[in-house]
């Protein structure tokens, strides 16, 4: 009896903290959905007229065929007051219904378009994140070991300059050099039209070939950030007393490196790793545009140029949800990994 109540007492603060954290996450999502809805609805002009204009200017259609196409889309454009539309959007959002696209092929549910594009973005962003994190950790640890040396200070400046180079610049250079000039990699799309999608070797090879340049663009820009963070974090850990003590105890240096320094130095980077997942989702617009990669960022770009209101909202909100959820998971996992926080809570 005593034991169980004290165990319960131990969990209460955790539960309270979790509830608070969840509440903030939900408020954030609500706030972002509301904000984006009213911003998008504030776009000037009649949607049908805008659609006609878009068809004429983007696809060089003549006015009559543009008009008939736009009018075909008209029934899919929500009517009524903005407030009314807002409330019905919120309700359907909660049901997982994100409205329909008026531009793609008129009437396609936004949800379907998202389901098609999310895996591509996850593939590129996910692998880029893992690769750049792994390389960055190695370089950062190496730099920390020789910190203060010439090579370390050179690399520190070099990486902080590299970090400021926009990823679209890197992507463009890679596209021109390895795509157009050497023709080593395909220049657009996620897979060639002549392979059959499915779990077969030619398809997987083709997909990887298409994903290589987008992933490489991310990796080049992001490695520097991880390396610099890991360097700073490792330098701090190296100064700790328990490292000195472990050395005095005569522990094998491999063990000190891995379980004393490595573990403790990576820990602070973990939160930013989780947060990056969400933010790279949002930042994928440029790279996906450049390689015409059919991911979420490209979908957002299409929605913007075609003024496809609900598609725009759908992509924007799905990115928000991704960011919020990854932040939430980061917080929870951080508590699980770091024993100090686990006991402190």
């Amino acid at each position, binding site marked *: 009896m005593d034991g169980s109540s004290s165990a319960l007492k131990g969990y209460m603060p955790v539960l309270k903290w979790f509830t608070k954290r969840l509440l903030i996450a939900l408020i954030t999502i609500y706030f972002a959905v509301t904000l984006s809805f009213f911003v998008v609805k504030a776009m000037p002009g009649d949607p049908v007229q805008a659609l006609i204009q878009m068809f004429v200017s983007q696809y060089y259609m003549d006015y009559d065929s543009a008009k008939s196409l736009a009018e075909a889309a008209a029934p899919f454009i929500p009517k009524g007051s903005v407030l009314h539309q807002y409330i019905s959007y919120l309700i359907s959002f909660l049901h997982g219904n994100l409205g329909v696209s008026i531009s793609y092929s008129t009437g396609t549910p936004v949800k379907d378009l998202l389901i098609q594009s999310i895996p591509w973005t996850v593939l590129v962003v996910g692998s880029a994140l893992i690769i750049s994190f792994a390389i960055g950790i190695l370089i950062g640890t190496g730099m920390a070991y020789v910190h203060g040396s010439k090579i370390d200070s050179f690399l520190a400046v070099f990486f902080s300059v590299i970090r400021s180079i926009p990823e679209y610049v890197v992507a463009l250079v890679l596209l021109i*050099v390895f795509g157009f000039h050497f023709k080593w990699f395909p220049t657009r799309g996620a897979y060639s039209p002549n392979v059959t999608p499915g779990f077969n070797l030619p398809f997987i090879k083709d997909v990887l070939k298409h994903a290589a340049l987008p992933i490489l663009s991310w990796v080049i820009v992001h490695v520097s950030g991880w390396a610099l963070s890991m360097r700073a974090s490792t330098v701090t850990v190296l100064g700790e007393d328990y490292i000195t003590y472990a050395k005095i105890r005569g522990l094998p240096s491999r063990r000190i490196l891995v379980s004393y320094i490595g573990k403790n130095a990576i820990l602070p980077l973990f939160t930013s790793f989780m947060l990056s997942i969400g933010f790279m989702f949002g930042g994928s617009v440029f790279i996906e545009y450049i390689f015409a990669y059919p991911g979420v960022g490209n979908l957002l770009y299409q929605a*913007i140029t075609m003024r496809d209101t609900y598609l725009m909202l759908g*992509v924007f909100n799905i990115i928000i949800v991704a960011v919020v959820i990854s932040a939430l998971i980061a917080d929870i996992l951080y508590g699980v990994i770091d024993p100090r926080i686990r006991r402190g809570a």
Partner: protein
Amino acid sequence: MKMAQNGSSFSELIRNAVEDWIIIPGKIIARNKRGLVGLIIALGYLFVGIVGTHIIQEPQSFTCIPYEPPSILKWPPSFEHPLGCDYIGTDILAQIVYGTPIVLQIALTAGLITTIIGVLVGLTAGFKGGMVDTVLTGITQIIMTIPGLPLIIVLSTVIRTYQPWTIGALIAIRWWTGLAMSIRSQVLSIKQRDFIEAAKVLGMKTHHIILREIMPNLISYIAINFVFAAVGAIYASVGLYFLGVLPISTYNWGVMLNMAYKQAGGGASVAALHYFLAPILAIVLLQTGLILLTYALDEVFNPRIRTEVS
């Protein structure tokens, strides 16, 4: 007599200001190789942005001779056109020069707004504490979670503006949050120190404590973050112009990138590289210069190094 005294104190004021803001920072930056390179690059861009458009003729299409459309391969860099011409015969160097002011204006606006909002929110939250802190931190964290780039893209389709100032403000909308949070935590830790307690016990006014006791500790951090905000704004604005999301009124690096990108698809390759390289180098050099400048900014505001130099 009194007039003369006024005059001398005024000239002294000027002399002190020049000493504080130009001579000492100049000496410090001159000692710091990275910072010096950064400063020269930044001033170079400033010069091009302010004076360049008055020296160099406005770029005009179909002016590169001989005009034979539509291939960029016709106009590689030459003596007359140092960076070559684009595919419709427009001088590339002139385009870069005429695209500079808008980039600098956006960077400056975004940097200023980011810094002002970030410092105000961070100082208030950290200094006041309590309910004010909880509310401000809560709002900041919510805005922080919204991914910046998609937000700016969506906003820019609604606020269709040519004004660099408005675009800068648009970009700053989300960028201030990180600065606000770190200023807040620094204020929280400075507040604990003895000299703040002492100032409070001595009955000093709040604005005196904030301006004279807390701010000097933050100023180098704020200056560096101003530059980082400018770097971020250059990244975002050129990127948005590249995507074609922002309306354009003048020559623009992002648009040049986009034109080069679209042309590259049409079979032109490394032979037409000069068209690509011009805007790419313009961006990368500017970003590099600004980042190098931050290495000196830290020292410029460090009181120990200041006394050492003077």
